[in-house]
């Protein structure tokens, strides 16, 4: 396996710096929200991790489609890497949302359309890995995974639009044009958009690293197979 490229090393450092800067902006730069208090600060990471979580799930669907067309196993590695990272970020989103909900809604969890669709999406992609574990042959595994990602990909836009389609208590932050949009001051907007940018870069960095790990995994699998022949 070739050693890490200079660009990826630089990206690793940039990702760490952006995470630090985003944390600073969220915790110290943005003002305290008047009604919710300090807990509102989890909103910056909550939305940013949700964004990259959804981005990765959609990337997995796209990679699945490309695999079905090209039959090239590298696209299976790309899809699996995207799902793995997105699962981590989406888990953070759900936990942060629950922590925010406790003092604001007076409950850790409620079966609101957004929360329900988000939980279902997370479970769907956990099942994606269970499916992969059940199939040994790499080509069959890749085909099944691609079809699965394609079939359940719509759960992501459904989660995104759940707060726009159904009656919900979850605030609408982006593009609602309604009165219930979360009011943000100029400093809050800076912290919010910076977090979105920072987590996008962090996602790209982790994604690249995870694809390298996937390729190494494939190499080891091939050597194992040839050793056992």
């Amino acid at each position, binding site marked *: *396996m070739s050693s890490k490229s200079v660009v990826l090393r630089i990206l690793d450092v940039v990702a760490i710096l952006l995470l630090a800067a985003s944390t600073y902006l969220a915790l110290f730069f943005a003002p305290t929200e008047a009604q919710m*208090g*300090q807990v509102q600060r*989890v909103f910056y990471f909550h939305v940013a991790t949700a964004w990259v979580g959804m981005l990765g799930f959609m990337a997995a669907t796209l990679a699945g489609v490309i695999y079905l067309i090209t039959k090239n196993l590298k696209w299976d590695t790309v899809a699996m890497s995207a799902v793995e*990272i997105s699962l981590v970020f989406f888990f953070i989103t759900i*936990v*942060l949302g629950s922590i925010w909900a406790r003092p604001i809604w007076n409950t850790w969890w409620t079966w609101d359309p957004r929360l329900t669709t988000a939980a279902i999406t997370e479970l769907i992609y956990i099942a994606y890995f269970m499916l992969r574990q059940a199939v040994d042959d790499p080509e069959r595994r890749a085909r099944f995974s691609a079809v699965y990602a394609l079939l359940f990909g719509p759960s992501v836009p459904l989660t995104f639009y759940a707060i726009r389609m159904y009656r919900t208590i979850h605030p609408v932050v982006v593009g609602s044009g309604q009165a219930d949009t979360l009011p943000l001051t100029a400093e809050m907007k800076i912290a919010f958009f910076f977090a979105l940018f920072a987590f996008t870069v962090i996602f790209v960095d982790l994604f690249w690293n*995870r694809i390298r790990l996937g390729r190494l995994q494939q190499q080891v699998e091939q050597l194992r197979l040839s050793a056992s022949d």
Partner: protein
Amino acid sequence: MFFQEPPPDTSSYMIAGYAVAFTVMAIYILSYVIRWRNLTRDLEVLDRLRKKTPAR
């Protein structure tokens, strides 16, 4: 305006939120490093075995 109440103290929830976010990210990165190290070790062993075994 003069009688506006101060925001409620919800700082413990904020700390818990950020603690969870950083812990989960740290665990994921640690798992990545461990998997990379194990696979590199496996690759070395398999490579050595391949070189030792005469070609059939």
